[in-house]
């Protein structure tokens, strides 16, 4: 083993020490507390219980909210994929050189800007009497603003997460050697067949990571439903927020958080497993 400066293991301590102390330990603490009757403080009597988890399964409210959160995440992922794949393909194959670089940066820029600012811009566009209503009014059509409706949440989520999907797919499409596509063509494959048999399978890793990068955070989304979904709109994310901010039922909040993590983890493992099986089959 060659001796290089910084090649010693102690270099890992600051970063990983930090992550252990302020990410993994808190998650472990929360996991333990999700089995307690209350947060142990001072002389307070606490006991071990499954009640927090039982609450989830007893009340139909929570399973409904989970369903809503999952539907929201599925729909957002679906639209991101539907719009994002062609966009990534167009970026990697239909433009070249400098233009490609500039367009790529333009897609990435919103990444850097504040997500709350982007949400706020949708509030302005979608509100009653907002730009969309005004636009249709020009043609004499009266359209109420769709702010505080479910579609508003989905629009804002797709707007926020589309760049992730485009980026990961673009990276995998960009790595495909053009000569593979040429070969497929010269062997007589039509465009659609080339796409289905060559391009699509080779871009699958990008699709899978894009799907995960969009799906996972959206399951936990609580800001978009709160701001764009109106008072009635509740998701698993908003109900967890409620437990910690309003009703101070922190152990129930912990259990709900872990159930959310569990569902997310299950889906991620499933999708990773499917993509591995697929790649093995080919």
């Amino acid at each position, binding site marked *: 083993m060659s001796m290089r400066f910084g090649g010693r293991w102690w270099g890992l301590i600051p970063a990983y020490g930090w992550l252990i102390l302020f990410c993994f330990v808190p998650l472990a603490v929360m996991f333990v507390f999700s089995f307690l009757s209350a947060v142990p403080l001072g002389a307070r009597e606490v006991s071990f219980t499954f009640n927090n988890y039982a609450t989830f399964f007893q009340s139909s409210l929570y399973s409904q909210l989970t369903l809503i959160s999952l539907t929201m995440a599925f729909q957002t992922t679906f639209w991101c994929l539907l719009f994002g794949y062609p966009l990534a393909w167009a970026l990697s194959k239909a433009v070249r050189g400098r233009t490609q670089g500039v367009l790529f940066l333009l897609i990435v820029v919103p990444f850097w800007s504040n997500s709350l600012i982007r949400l706020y811009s949708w509030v302005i566009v979608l509100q009653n009497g907002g730009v969309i209503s005004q636009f249709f009014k020009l043609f004499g059509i009266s359209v109420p603003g769709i702010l505080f409706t479910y579609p508003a949440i989905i629009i804002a989520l797709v707007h926020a997460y589309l760049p992730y999907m485009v980026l990961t797919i673009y990276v995998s499409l960009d790595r495909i050697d053009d000569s593979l596509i040429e070969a497929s063509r010269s062997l007589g494959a039509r465009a659609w067949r080339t796409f289905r048999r060559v391009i699509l399978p080779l871009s699958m890793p990008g699709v899978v990571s894009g799907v995960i990068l969009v799906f996972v955070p959206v399951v936990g989304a609580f800001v978009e439903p709160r*701001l764009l979904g109106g008072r009635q709109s509740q998701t698993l994310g908003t109900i967890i927020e409620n437990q910690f901010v309003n009703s101070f039922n922190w152990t129930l909040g912990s259990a709900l*958080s872990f159930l959310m993590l569990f569902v997310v983890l299950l889906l991620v493992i499933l999708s990773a497993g499917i993509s591995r099986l697929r790649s093995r089959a080919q």
Partner: protein
Amino acid sequence: MKHLLRNTARVYIVLALGFIYVPLLIMMLNAFNQSRINQFPLVFDLVWFQKLAQNQRLIRATVNSLSIAAFTSVLATICATFAALVLARQQFRGKAFLQALLLPPMTIPWIILAVALLLTFFWLGISRSIVTLLLGHVTVQIPFAIIVISARLAATDRTLEDAAASLGSRPARTFRTITLPLMLPGVLAALIFTFAVSFDNFPISYFLAPAGVSTLPVEIYTAIRTGFTPEVNAISTLVFIVSAACALVGGREISFGVRSA
């Protein structure tokens, strides 16, 4: 036929950019609009920027966001640089595991990480303060910084270091004259990127900030929930322009592992 496809693709790119930017443009236009309720036609007026200049709340929140992002990005990037050097230049068992450990802090819904920290601090008797806020921000920044710096280190040629070593250069000197200059763009990119991550972060600030301390995202959130005036447009416009400029400078370097433009 091929032309048709290519042109369709180009039109599609323009439409997609429209979807991404039109809402932001409308918001920015309304910052210069006299209308209090964002109504067109546009009547040019700088009244909202004048009001913003007197709005101590929004200004203080913006300054808070900037200082928090500046401080935490430096801290996170320093920690990450050491880790990235080890991960990139050293072979050891469990490396893949360590790299996998970076994923949860980045990918789990941040509300979960935020409430886990809140709960743990509360249990330990640590009340919400500026310190708890900073701790949370650095936690989400570190993995991003490690990944950005590692990508840069992976792209640099190791044979240069081997050559220097075989020519008798000591490790410290090799590091100073070869590795450090090569990795510096990655470190700068990590700084800019983690700055953006912190500046953008809402859930961590929302749950961990002490009473009376607010960041720009938290302030916008409150504004939307409790009724807002176009002063929010004005500050958002300024922030968007500045962050877009930073992205155009920093994005070139990062490009997420894609060959640079």
